């Protein structure tokens, strides 16, 4: 699913975000990427989302080389990815339903299909009864679940999450992780960037550890 081969990322100011990173992620795998602030977690996610390009090495996502992908191809690549942010990135002037429907509207699905898929996604995160509410009416945990519903509503092959439990209390964080595991059970690869080692340890999934842009650990969290 994902192949990093000696991937490096050096910024114009000379800062090295990633240093010859190599690893693979299989289809349907669940893994964490951890490390301190500045370790390179966000850079790794930004490379996978084609928000930035590697400056060296080869980065393949579903067979597509992200170093050479054209700008016109990027939106179509992103349609195969779901992304969850720490700050949810919800649109507060749209209802929960319309927030979740956004990726499907971009795909141009018929209204009936959109309604069906959105309600299913909201049911999956236990928010079907909040469809007509606005994000501002919801708690932080509920907003995060709306973000997850939006990330999976178009059935992406890969789900990326950047510190998805960063603002949540431990009970809510565990609940959100449960939702990610549910999604993973259906075959979606899940890659979560987090520095919450206690939470990661409880989940017992594969964990990549980064330090100053280098991969210093790859194994099951314990």
């Amino acid at each position: 699913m994902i192949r990093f081969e000696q991937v490096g990322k050096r910024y114009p100011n000379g800062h090295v975000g990633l240093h010859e990173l190599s690893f693979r992620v299989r289809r349907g795998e669940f893994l964490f990427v951890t490390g301190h602030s500045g370790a390179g977690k966000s850079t790794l996610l930004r490379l996978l989302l084609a928000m930035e390009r590697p400056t060296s090495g080869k980065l393949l996502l579903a067979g597509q080389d992200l170093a050479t992908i054209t700008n016109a191809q990027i939106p179509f690549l992103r349609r195969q990815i779901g992304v969850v942010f720490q700050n949810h990135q919800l649109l507060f002037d749209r209802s929960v339903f319309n927030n979740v429907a956004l990726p499907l509207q971009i795909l141009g699905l018929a209204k009936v299909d959109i309604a069906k898929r959105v309600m299913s996604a909201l049911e999956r995160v236990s928010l079907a009864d909040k469809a007509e509410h606005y994000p501002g009416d919801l708690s932080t945990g509920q907003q995060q679940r709306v973000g997850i519903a939006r990330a999976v509503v178009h059935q992406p092959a890969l789900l990326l999450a950047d510190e998805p439990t960063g603002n949540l209390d431990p009970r809510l964080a565990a609940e959100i992780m449960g939702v990610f595991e549910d999604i993973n059970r259906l075959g979606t690869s899940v890659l979560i960037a987090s520095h919450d080692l206690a939470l990661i340890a409880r989940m017992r999934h594969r964990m990549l550890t980064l330090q100053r842009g280098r991969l210093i650990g790859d194994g099951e969290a314990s």
Partner: protein
Amino acid sequence: MSATRNSQPAERVGGSPNKPPKPVSDGPGFQQLLHAWVESHRTSLLDSLRRLLKQPIGSFFTCLVMAIALSLPMGLSLLLNNVERLGGSWQRAAQISLFLKLEASPAEAQRLRDEIAQMSDVAAADWISREQALDEFQQLSGLGEALKELPDNPLPSVILVTPEVVDKANLEALRLRLAEQPNVEQAQLDLVWVERLSAILKLGERFVFGLTLLLVSALLLVIGNTIRLHIENRRSEIEVIKLVGGTDSYVRRPFLYMGALYGVGAGLLAWLVLAFGLDWLNDAVVRLAGLYGSDFALGGVPSGDGLSLLLGALLLGYIGAWLAVARHLSELAPR
């Protein structure tokens, strides 16, 4: 080391349990693509309309500013057309005055008038005898008593020739031909005023063209700035749209519709402003023309010109929005 996998079947949103998900974007057929395209345009248009109506006063004033910028050159152009129409009718009334020799008899003058009237490029020819000329001059000049003291009538008889063709070259050719006729002392064609009017109209046209260029540029700036503000207000939304797979054209579309809608609104307002403005001016023009014995009246906004104005405004709105979005789209990469 691999991840811990759980193969427990579970219900999936539109997917099959235990199978890797198949993205809904995989392999769309032509019909689906067409539907997506139509649906996207419909949604963008309605969304843009909704956003404009949500701020009716702001939208109205933007349209009004654009309408003023449109109606100034258009109004001047319509006025020039009217003046050209007026100038044309005067030009058609241009006449060549043939002053006959003093020794020419009335019979010879009448015969010459008949010959000239039969020329193909002459619409009419009228003879004014020496006596008629003197009477007219006495009445109009106020020198009646002084003229009575003269031993002889010094004025020649005149044939006034109304030409069929009114352009300058043809008139000059006709004048030369008439000047060669027997008993003709002098053939006079006064086209100076026509040339002056024509020069003024040309200057006016150039002025309108320059003004149009300036105001169109201003209009593009107004629409560009308005769309830029809309883009700024929706920056976070655009970033999210791009992150979930929205193409540049998907992002651009609602703003282009918004520009076109602003253009349509401005075009309609400009049409209204011109129609009412010309109607308002017309009363004064009719009164003034009446004082000169003319039934001249200003024409309104012809429907063809009105539709061109509307279409032009729509295109300008669209182009202004396109320029603004093209300039700012690259700055809207997700952060």
